[in-house]
């Protein structure tokens, strides 16, 4: 059926939770583009048929015209599906910069197309240059702070980290009382958690 494969792409995207991302479906995308070329060929041949019968292309409403209309509509439908697929993925990828930071973990990277990776890098660079212009890190304090310091528990061996003016050894299971803004990137990456008594 026309347009079926293109909507499968979107179904795949819709089935995962908001903010999550599925692997880029290269095969399906290729097939949809091939389908588009097929529609285009059929459309051209039907139009040629009308012209060969020396009928006016603007006013003719015969079987060939309606066949051409259906192929044209299928093309625009496929286009909408493909655009929506790319656009919605791009939105999620943008949000990753704010949620995880400038470096993506391997398991997420694997799901992206190389152009999407490029997009992420460029978006990340744009955000960073804006932040350095403002001299303000906009990715911290996503939750309004009550106290500038926070008690954290380290979940994974992070090692020696330079915070402000002294180094801290962040070994697994250790507890620290550090600046909230320093802890925030580690928490969002899942390496620390807020420690509550």
């Amino acid at each position, binding site marked *: 059926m026309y347009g079926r494969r293109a909507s499968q792409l979107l179904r795949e995207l819709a089935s995962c939770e908001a903010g999550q991302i599925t692997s880029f479906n290269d095969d399906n995308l290729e097939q949809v583009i091939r389908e588009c070329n097929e529609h285009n060929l059929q459309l051209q*041949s039907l139009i040629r048929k009308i012209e060969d019968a020396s009928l006016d292309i603007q006013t003719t409403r015969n*079987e060939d015209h*309606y*066949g051409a209309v259906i192929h044209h509509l299928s093309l625009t439908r496929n286009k*909408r599906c493909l655009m929506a697929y790319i656009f919605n993925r791009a939105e999620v990828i943008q949000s990753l910069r704010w949620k995880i930071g400038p470096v993506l973990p391997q*398991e997420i990277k694997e799901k992206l197309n190389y152009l999407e990776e490029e997009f992420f890098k460029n978006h990340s660079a744009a955000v960073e240059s804006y932040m350095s212009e403002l001299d303000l890190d906009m990715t911290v304090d996503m939750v309004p702070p009550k106290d500038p310091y926070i008690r954290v528990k380290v979940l994974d061996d*992070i090692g020696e980290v*330079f915070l402000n003016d002294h180094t801290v050894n962040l070994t697994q299971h250790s507890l620290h009382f550090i600046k909230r803004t320093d802890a925030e990137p580690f*928490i*969002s990456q899942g390496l620390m958690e807020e420690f509550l008594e």
Partner: protein
Amino acid sequence: MPSYYNIDDVLMEDEPISVVFQVGANGVGLLDPGSETNNIEKGAKVDLPFWLAHELYLRQAVSTNVPACFSMKTRKEIQADASCVDLRFRCPYFYELGYKIAPLVGDKSIGAFLRYAFTSRYGEILSKSHSTAGTAPKFSARLTKEESQLFEAARSSMAAFKKWKIGGSRLEKASILGRKRKTTLPQPSIP
């Protein structure tokens, strides 16, 4: 008007509509599984996705029938006990499709029917969403896409309210990393 990129709107337009061709069309035999040639004859009865049926209707190439999910049978069931009807099974985009199909089939009662169905199901959705902890699989499986978004919104706002009562939000791990399995390999340390 939903945006061009709206996934739900794109998928809604995929719902099948039964139409009768008022004209013939060449080179599109794929649409009609009963057709032996590569053409569609005048008078052929075919199921088309809404996006195609709608545009062809505007060009007076097809006449549309009322989809099964707005049939008399469904209406009777909704009248009997609205919240028990499995609308997702009938059509996951019940309201959106009804809204778009109504001008095409010339059935004026669809609008009132949609409103009746929505208002009588709404109360149940709201009370269930506030009282259930986690998900209510049996109930939410019956909801259309729009209704489950409503259900989820009500549930999460109630959860956020409860969280606020016990001391506000905390810093959390990015949700996209949530499903990561614990690796035992030595991780490179972050400077």
